[in-house]
């Protein structure tokens, strides 16, 4: 692959440039964001709508994207899959090859057409492997998608970006509280700062009723009438959610039901317990992350998408690590030794990725039903 077949460029913070051709929405205005890569080979619809990617520029390492197209848009307010939220969340998409001629019984439009409809720019023709190696070696970087003719400095000034301390959360939290699922089911309070819709679907399919509320609003009151609390995934730096962590700590003092956290929920629960989080060099974003259950000894393949991790050494004595990543040894879950509070760093709801740890939802909903 050789440079510059016209069109646009991906600029990295360290000065590297990756030329390519535009697809999806026209790049009228440069976009900026943290550049992250995902190594999953299928599942672009789920991935692109995952709110955890809010504000980021996503690189997909599998070279062919768009093969099976995209299903029709779902109605307003629906939480149907394969969409994980109501819109494409990324700032921009970087691929090696976009396949405009899709083929699938469920597909009605191309990936590019979908990006265009949602105003999200894409760049293709990039050696995504070379780009990934750079991100692996230098760590995650800020990046910029800009027209080829524009100098990076100018582009940066004009670029649209998501403010990642506060705005990013505001953009992904639900509006008014909503309830889903069977009315007679045990009510689970989903504290949502960007939770994937499949967390809701995973709970209601097991008989739970879900009360989905914004994690940026106080939720203690709602917790009083709930059988259990689910802490969902979300974008950004958990360190910017100190208010949420503080309130969670207070709730944990009196809450009798089970609490279960996923991804960002793992970091929030750890923070509430008194532990710290730190930023990984380039995060875990793939559907092939091996984790080991330190209690049972069993290992599982999991879907992951996170840039921060819990520092196990800072866990208080009444907590213990629950899961561990077999690749780099980082924490993948924690649990309280004396309370039914636990959380995991990976995504048992999958979408995309393996469903091997879905049993964790079974256990949680059963506990909610019993509490």
């Amino acid at each position, binding site marked *: 692959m*050789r440079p510059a077949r016209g069109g646009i460029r991906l600029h990295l913070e360290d000065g590297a440039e990756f030329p390519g051709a535009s697809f999806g929405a026209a790049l009228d205005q440069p976009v900026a964001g943290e550049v992250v890569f995902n190594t999953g080979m299928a599942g672009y619809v789920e991935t692109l709508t995952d709110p955890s990617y809010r504000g980021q520029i996503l690189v997909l390492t599998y070279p062919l994207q768009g093969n099976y197209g995209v299903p029709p848009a779902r109605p307003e307010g629906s939480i149907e899959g394969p969409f994980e939220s109501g819109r494409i969340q990324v700032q921009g998409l970087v691929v090696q090859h976009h396949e405009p001629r899709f083929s699938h019984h469920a597909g009605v439009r191309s990936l590019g057409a979908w990006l265009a409809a949602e105003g999200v720019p894409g760049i293709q023709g990039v*050696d995504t492997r070379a780009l990934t190696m750079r991100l*692996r070696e230098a760590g995650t970087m800020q990046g910029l998608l800009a027209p080829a003719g524009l100098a990076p400095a100018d582009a940066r000034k004009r670029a649209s970006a998501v403010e990642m301390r506060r705005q990013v959360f505001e953009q992904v939290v639900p509006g008014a509280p909503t309830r889903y699922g069977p009315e007679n089911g045990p009510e689970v309070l989903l504290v949502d700062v960007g939770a994937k819709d499949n967390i809701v679907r995973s709970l209601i399919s097991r008989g739970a009723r879900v009360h989905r509320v914004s994690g940026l609003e106080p939720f203690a009151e709602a917790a009083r009438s709930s059988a259990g609390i689910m802490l969902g995934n979300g974008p950004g730096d958990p360190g910017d959610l100190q208010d949420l962590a503080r309130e969670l700590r207070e709730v944990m003092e009196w809450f009798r039901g089970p609490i279960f956290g996923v991804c960002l929920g793992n970091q929030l629960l750890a923070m509430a317990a008194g532990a710290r989080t730190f930023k990984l060099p380039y995060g875990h974003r793939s559907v092939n992350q091996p984790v080991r259950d330190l209690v049972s000894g069993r290992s599982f393949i999991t879907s992951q998408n996170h840039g921060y991790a819990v520092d196990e050494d800072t866990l208080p004595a009444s907590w213990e690590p629950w899961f561990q990543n*077999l690749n780099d040894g980082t924490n993948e879950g924690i649990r309280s030794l004396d309370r039914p509070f636990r959380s995991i760093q990976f995504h048992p709801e*999958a979408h995309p990725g393996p469903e091997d740890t879905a049993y964790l939802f079974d256990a949680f909903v059963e506990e909610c039903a019993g509490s």
Partner: protein
Amino acid sequence: MRRVVSKAPLKPQSVIVLGSGALQIGQAGEFDYSGSQAIKAFSEEGVRTVLVNPNIATIQTSEGMADRLYLNAVTPRLVRQVAEDEGVDGVALSFGGQTALNCGLELEEWFRDTGIQVLGTPVKSIRDTEDRGRFNARLAEIGVLTARSIVCHRRDEAREAARTIGLPLMLRIGFALGGKGSAIVDTEAELEAALTNIFGAHDTKQAQVLVEESLRGWKEIEYEVVRDRENNCITVCNMENMDPMGIHTGESLVVAPSQTLNDEEYQLLRTVSIRTIQHLGIVGECNVQFALSPTGADYRVIEVNARLSRSSALASKATGYPLAYVAAKLGLGFTLPDLKNAITGVTKAFFEPALDYLVLKAPRWDLGKFQEAGTRIGSEMKSVGEVMAIGRTFPEVLQKALRMLDIGVKGLDSRAFEFEDRDDELKNATPRRVFALAQALREAVEAGRVPEAIEEIHDLTRIDPWFLHGVAEAMRTEAEVERGGWPIPEATLERAKEQGFSDESLEFLTGRARGEARAARRAAGVGPHIARIDTLAAEFPAETNYLYSTYHASGDEGVGLPAGDRRRILVIGSGVYRIGSSVEFDWCCVNAVQAAAELGFETLMLNYNPETVSTDYDICDKLVFDEVSVESVLDLVEKERPDGVVVSMGGQIPNRLAMRLHHAGVPILGTSAEDIDRAEDRNKFSALLDRIGVDQPRWAHVTDVADAERIVEELGGFPVLVRPSYVLSGAAMSVAHEHHELARILRKAKAISPEHPVVISKFEEDAREIEIDLVANRGEVVLWAVSEHVEDAGVHSGDATLVLPPVDMTIPTLGQVRRIAQQIAKELRVTGPCNIQLLHRDGIVKVIECNLRASRSLPFVSKVTGRNYARAATRIMLGADPGMEHRPLYELEHVGVKVPQFSFSRLMGADPLLGVEMASTGEVGCLGDSFHEALLHGLVATGFRGPKKGVLLSLGPPRWKHRFVRTARTMAEELGLKIYATSGTCRVLRESGIDATEVARVRSEQRPLGAGFDRPGPLSALDLIDRGEVDLVVNVPVAFDPEGRPDGYLVRRRAVDRGVPLITDPSLARHVVTALVTHGEDGLRARAWNDFLET
């Protein structure tokens, strides 16, 4: 928390590993890869390994692999004897294909009684997967869907089942490898015909048949799944067949990972795979095959292979995940999280590879080599080899793969073939279907109706439109290049290269001369880059150099100078396996790499065959898994600058690149390219023989059909051997016994011209062929060994039974052979390996041909003599000493016999007749104290079972009828066989006082066309075979058979179809009878190769 922990088994001390035997259709080189990995995995843990595998051409049967090696049949009796003699306490069944598995299943009780532990998957689980009724029931227990099916044991049951399920139907036979005996039936008539095939014309055959709903047109998807004893599970890879259900996966174009599945479907099948193998209790590796509905998330599990398979070898190469190695460790009781990811060295074996490229596997067929064989492909496997291409787009990998097949195409070439009825070709696939696709889509591009054409083709083929779009994409580029002329615009050139067009193809499309495309793209700075396969899509750095080249990469990985002052060599691999070139050349290449590494060289390996050991990334310092062509070698050499390139170890494919590489300045190791050419060019070689006074059969070029008769006269009359020099693919050589036959052959040879002459040579009758394999250093022979054919001359050397040392040759003749070989080696300044084929009759020796490269028989010669010729040759080419002393043949206290393996039973309709064109798909090599002992071992190892009831003799030419009398008498009197014979043969036998029953070959109603004579007698030969009255058929065809003698063909074919041993060479038949009398099949004992070699 669910905790599933079984007690860790005690690690065995000594394990017997069962191999797969000779290569055959449906069971090929992939099991050399899996067995070799298993032996390595066991040895690392200090476990003593005992290997039983008669396939002498494999890496696994090499010195330094198993601690003890038995080159004999994998049969229950012999395996049991070896296990007892060696005192093993463990057995590995899953690395030797269906052969090993079936043998292990038969010995299950004995293993249990003697306390021999079956490693890995328990036998009960294997049985659950092998018996279809049981399999469906087991999966139903967990709600996993299988195809609706009914097990039947009788014709009426099968008819009833067919009514219940409804046509169309799939009929399958249990315990079969490679889909043998399965068929799709659309009509009542087809159903009846298939049932006759299964149960016999008179419903006399015992069989189990599965009548199953037909899922033709569904997507065919496979998952490779691994599970350890603690229930940890991963899927290493999934694969999607481009050809949907209805075409055997071994016959399909297959991509990995799947391309048209969304996450929901991908995970649905993944989850079902894992639930299935957890429920079945697999420990190790297995393969789950699915049919997936193209219109919704509906699936059926088609089958589970509870062992390493062709697909698992492919998945290992596709991902870099060493499945066989890991499976072996799991069999010892390790768990997945215990083991490291061998590629990264830091992460664990418990993970699922993420690919940032795709691969495509394409099968290679050789159907043209077989007379009468059908050309359709379907639910039975017929292919003899496969290739794997790596790249980043579908057109790229497809074009690469099609070139790798070495069938004379330049890629997805729309003009490669002409089709009489293209729609029929698309609907009823043959090996050329993909070219019909290309042609149809090229026309659609010209007509501006690609979307419509894709719809039409999809209707005919059920191939997913995604793949058709990919082909259309390449055809758009083909059209653009052709229209755009020269020079090709840079953007078009780049796109063409990214889509996998070769330089040669671009030159062809634009009418340029060879080399111009390369020059143009170099001027434009367009070239490929090397990328790495690292199992994790670059998430973690890789320690290994498993590489491929692509025009989509922006820079090179893994390229650079060797460490320190090491010198670097490149070994070019054998490419695709086909009839005439298979695992033996992989053995040579691997040995070359190992020998070079021992001498301190950095080693590069270039090959693209996924069923090989040479493409294991731990065999060499750098593995480049890519095309073997002048273009790819030059690109690689420019980047890596090796000090030398080995072209003489991988057979024809690398050897024929020698001259062009040499002219391009590539340093060829060993014998010079000019000297290679002097041996390959018939005129030059013949002149050379004349000059040094070495005799050769008389021959001449025919450039004009009109001259043929005169030339035959000059050569001394018929019979003659006819060999077209220009062959695109398929059959080439044949023997002509008289004028009409010659005319017919020449007509078939098509374009005869001064550029494409036909070679006619005198065919020597009643002569014996011999081969000498040698290693020479600057023309001085260092090692040499002579093998002799058991059959009379005229049988291709690859199909002949070989004996070493020769048993039917005088010392002076041997001396002559040795002298001639030395003369030729000196004249051609041979440095490295060389093989010369000769004839001898009445003390006169003539040279037939000479190849200045490793030969098919090199591993056989090496293992029989205990001198590794490939290593010695490599050392010499690298300037070192041979590293071993020559061992004179008379010092050998044992005899080695190489016996060919045929796969006629898989090629419906093919005439199982041996001739000058090679037909065998594999071979075994066995040792014995005597020729006859070794021969019998070899025969048993290729599936021969000694006759117990009766023999059918049909002895062809009169001289053979008389010569065979003594043997026939032995059959009757010493073997106690009832003798049946066709009329002429019967008369001769009766005249000699042998009690023979006369039978007609065929009753008139048994003839397809009803032609020919009716012979008296109530029974025909076909009836005898059908009723199991004879368990050996000796059918010697008459030399010349202008009409193709349908009756003889029907008898031979029926023997093959009914699994009755068939011998068509009278010399071989005589020796077989002697061997049965002197040793007896039941008297054979296995003896370790290590012990033979020590004497």
